[in-house]
């Protein structure tokens, strides 16, 4: 049994926790319902909404931190959703150490990105709609993390899926954007099925989907069922968090506006899978098989994402590959067990900062480069965009794990924990760290260093303050986040079952693994610099490249694999069903119809309109009933 907290009944401010969700939800509804009326000011109130939620969350966080440890989880039942037979579904919120961190991340980074979008989307004709969707996303994401049962999680889960779909295909006039939105939505459905099946199983076995009931019942689950639920939850997590084999949608999702990529497809939504796995810790505790599967999936994805990141020239796709890879690290940590949970969440938070930072930086670069995303057309931007360069550089140092930057703390923990749990995974995670350093260095060199390869009509310039101030804020987070969190996050998350063997200090704890990691990272940086910093970068992507690069450029053939594995089979199946319908069922149905109709034609002649016939029918009927009674007596 895990030493988890039992939620106490909400009092004081916590009774109003629903406001966290309600504020952005109402603003989104207002903007969408009132329509053009709000064109002039909609984006302002939409930007205030997450800020208001953030302030509320911050106060709750402080109250929670001051409360005695036993009261760290607060439950708030809002209303009864439905009752069906023995099943009873309440809509309730759970504010505990895990969810409050997420709320702070979502509303904090969300606020910064809203402000950034004020500048980024200033000239878009559909700005109001964009902000409405962003608010919708914030509301749905908060439902997801604040829910106290899987079924309410599912509401948020679908809500963020919807918001993601709407925002990826925000510029729906572009066929590629429309297709990308559809792809994301469809691939997510596969994961959603996993969550649904997991919930059905819980209902059948436990009779409830509330976290507290499931956690209580988990230790008594038969290990087969626990494994089944674990795998179904993993499937759900793979869909939402773009893990192998459901990873292919995330790269296409970059068709959305860059703030969307930063908020949804880097900092928050795509980490929902990690949240789900950590939240379901009680179930994974019962099933080493599913736990190992989580870790393996995470490891595979972290390598695949890094590989893709190495070979892309599109700055956003490099970052998308990197996001996949970093979430792979989180999944790996989540799969290690209680020892890794705190690190998974830790890395999730720091990643939220530095990846949002870099995405917004990329947006700033695109802003200066007339929307171009090809890094081969950049180069030497450090002089033209100094603030973007510095803030991006801080994000870069954070992600490669440069000492004292945030990623250094969180990633080191994961690699170390992986070594302790399963050396093979540890080695692979270590290699991933080196590759990360390589492709991020490549990105830095191609974008900010070397000689300028701009097109003639491009005049790079620094972005306006409304865009660079958020960059600075996120850069501060990217730098200091690790130090600030390192000393207490392990202990903080103990209440939700995490058992971090952490080092409660902001000073790095030097181990041999840490030293080796630094060496590998340094090697990656040097290789990147040697290949892309020292030598000139061709403005056209070279065609004669190694098989490794070709594979990476093609996303490791994820789409083709998906198509061949699912699409082809599906098409054959559909054709077969169609054929069976046409040749088998249709004639059957038509035949039945024909038989019934012919029969009806014959039988209706009994109804000839003569009373005498009717009377005889009645008499025969009476005799029949009499006979039946006699027979029933004889038998």
């Amino acid at each position: 049994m895990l030493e988890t907290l039992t939620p106490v009944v909400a009092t004081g401010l916590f009774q109003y926790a629903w406001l966290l969700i309600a504020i952005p939800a109402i603003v989104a509804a207002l903007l969408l319902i009132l329509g053009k009326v709000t064109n002039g000011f909609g984006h302002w109130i939409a930007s205030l909404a997450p800020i208001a939620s953030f302030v509320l969350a911050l106060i709750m966080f402080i109250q929670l931190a001051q409360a005695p440890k036993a009261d760290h989880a607060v439950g708030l039942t809002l209303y009864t959703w439905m009752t069906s037979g023995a099943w009873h579904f309440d809509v309730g919120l759970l504010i505990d150490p895990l969810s409050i961190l997420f709320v702070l991340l979502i509303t904090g980074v969300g606020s910064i990105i809203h402000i950034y979008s004020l500048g980024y989307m200033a000239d878009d004709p559909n700005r109001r709609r964009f902000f409405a969707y962003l608010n919708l996303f914030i509301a749905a994401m908060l439902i997801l993390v604040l829910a106290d049962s899987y079924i309410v999680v599912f509401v948020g889960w679908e809500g963020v899926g919807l918001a993601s779909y709407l925002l990826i295909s925000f510029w729906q006039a572009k066929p590629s954007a429309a297709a990308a939105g559809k792809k994301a939505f469809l691939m997510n459905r596969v994961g959603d099925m996993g969550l649904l099946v997991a919930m059905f199983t819980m209902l059948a076995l436990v009779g409830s989907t509330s976290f507290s009931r499931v956690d209580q019942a988990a230790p008594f689950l038969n290990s087969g069922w626990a494994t089944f639920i674990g795998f179904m939850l993993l499937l759900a997590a793979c869909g939402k968090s773009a893990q192998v084999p459901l990873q292919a949608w995330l790269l296409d999702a970059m068709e959305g506006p860059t703030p969307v990529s930063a908020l949804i497809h880097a900092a928050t939504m795509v980490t929902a899978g990690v949240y789900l796995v950590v939240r379901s810790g009680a179930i994974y505790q019962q099933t080493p098989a599913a736990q190992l599967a989580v870790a393996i999936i995470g490891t595979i994805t972290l390598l695949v994402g890094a590989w893709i990141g190495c070979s892309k020239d599109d700055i956003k796709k490099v970052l998308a590959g990197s996001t996949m890879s970093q979430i792979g690290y989180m999944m790996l940590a989540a799969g290690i067990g209680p020892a890794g949970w705190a690190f998974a969440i830790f890395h999730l938070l720091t990643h939220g900062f530095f990846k949002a930072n870099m995405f917004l930086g990329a947006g700033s670069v695109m802003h200066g480069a007339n929307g171009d995303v090809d890094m081969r057309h950049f180069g030497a931007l450090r002089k033209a965009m100094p603030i973007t360069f510095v803030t991006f550089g801080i994000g870069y140092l954070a992600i490669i794990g440069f000492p004292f930057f945030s990623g250094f703390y969180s990633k080191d923990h994961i690699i170390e924990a992986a070594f302790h749990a399963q050396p093979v995974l540890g080695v692979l995670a270590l290699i991933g760290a080196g590759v990360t350093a390589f492709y991020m260095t490549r990105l830095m060199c191609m974008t900010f260093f070397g000689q300028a390869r701009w097109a003639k009509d491009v005049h790079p310039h620094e972005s306006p303050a409304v865009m660079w101030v958020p960059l600075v804020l996120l850069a501060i987070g990217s730098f200091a986040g690790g130090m600030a969190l390192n000393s207490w996050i392990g202990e903080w998350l103990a209440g939700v079952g995490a058992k971090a063997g952490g080092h409660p200090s902001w000073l790095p704890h030097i181990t041999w693994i840490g030293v080796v990691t630094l060496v590998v990272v340094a090697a990656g940086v040097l290789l990147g610099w040697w290949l892309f910093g020292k030598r000139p970068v061709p403005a056209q992507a070279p065609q004669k490249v190694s098989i490794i690069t070709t594979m990476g450029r093609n996303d490791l053939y994820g789409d083709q694999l998906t198509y061949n594995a699912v699409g082809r089979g599906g098409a054959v199946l559909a054709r077969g069903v169609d054929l069976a319908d046409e040749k088998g069922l249709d004639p059957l149905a038509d035949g039945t119809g024909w038989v019934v109709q012919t029969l009806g034609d014959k039988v209706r002649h009994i109804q000839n309109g003569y009373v005498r016939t009717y009377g005889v029918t009645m008499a025969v009927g009476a005799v029949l009933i009499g006979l039946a009674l006699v027979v029933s007596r004889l038998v």
Partner: protein
Amino acid sequence: MIFLEFTAPQVDYVRLLPFLIVLGVACLGILVEAFVPRKARFVTQTALAILGLAAGLGATIWQWGDGGRGLADPASITGGVTGTVLVDGPVQCFWAILFGFGLIAAILFAERRAHAGASAFTPMAAAIPGSRLESEASEAGLVHSEVFPLALFSLSGMALLVATNDLLVLFVAVEVLSLPLYVLSGLARHRRLISQEAALKYFLLGAAASAILLFGVAFLFGYSGGFSYEKLAHAVSFSTMGDGILLAGMGLVAVGLLFKIGAVPFHSWVPDVYQGAPTPVTAFMSVCTKVAAVAGLLRLFYAGLGGMRWNWQPILAGVAILTIIVAAIIAINQTDVKRVLAYSSVAHAGFVLVPVVGAFTLQSGLPEGQAGSVASVMFYLVGYGLATIGCFTVIMLVRSQGREASSLDAWAGIGRRYPLFGVVMVIFLLSLAGIPLTAGFMGKLAAFMAAWRGGYWWLALVAVLGSIIAVFIYIRVIQVMFFREPAEGSDPVELVRPGVPAVIVLALCLIGTLGLGLVPGPLLDAFQAASSFLIPAGA
């Protein structure tokens, strides 16, 4: 020397109040015919009937809670006329259903605008159809306002049939409900010959059925030595006599009641009478007669012949299957909308017998709080009644040259020309077909569940299959309404603007159909709470 000892029966008038109100208003209606000037009669009768039925319904609902309380203390409610009439929970439910639908039908009787200012009834029933006398009467604006008291008398009979606890009263009630209906069936304004033919057929066959019923009553009397249900139940449990007489009596009484329900093979009158009778009368009898007959059957077979369950369940199951299948098959080839609905009504008689067969009650292992056979029968009848009256109201409005155009060919494409009307009709038809989100679906669900739980799972399965065939009946009408072009050179069919009464009826039926489809819980629970028959001591 014979001493005739007569003890005055103890009559609980308060408990009988709803029935007495309706019967009293019917009698009052006769006086109205005698004393109120001709011009004011139709309005007076309309108002009287509607108020009377509303009062009856109100009194029933006012006492509803009583039934539940009385159950705890049977001694306090062996009320009514001791022994012959019994007012308990199911009776109050069925009264509420009867008076509610009676009220709706009475409102429909009052509809005049659809008939170009006249009523649906002939101006002078005694005149030879097509004669000068008839057209003069028509021009003079005569109306048969007697239809209201007739309907109320019929309703009184139905109310008695529902509440009777005595075989003799059962027979009387069946006669009281039938005789006015024979007359009403012959009063159609147009196509009078068909109407009169229908009335005569109904009367002849009804007389035969009554004879059979009475014969059955005699056998049962011979077996139990009395008329009351408790004596019958007692004899079933304890009599040492050979039960040949009992089986014969039971079978014959069942035939008599199944005739009124309209189950195959005692259904032959239904299509002809439904087609010939004035449409409001068809609406009235297709719903109220069925409710009363099913309720009467239910009480007799559950309370009086409960001990013979193992004998009558298979018989009724066979009748139910036969009814569903035969009605559904014949309905498919009908060319007249009223006949389609008549066969639909027969099919529904089969469906409603399904939960009756299940006999899933508190006595046979029904868990507290779930809907059993009695409650599901009630709910099913409510859903069926709402949709059926709604359909017939729509039929009243589709006219060609001032007459109802009920042939299916005439309906071609009418849904597209009148979309609002089309959608309303489609909702009623879908409810009859048992498509989800309508009362018809919830009714079928509850009914088949009751049969399933009562051990008749195979009957429930057959009923489901039968309802799939039955869906075809309604889809065919929808298909004609929306997807078929009217034939070249056919008479133009139009939808006349309904008057206030028809609009009220349509609105009530529509709201009820959709409302009970979406939120069936409260009504089902209320029925279930009051669904235990009071079985008097000695049973």
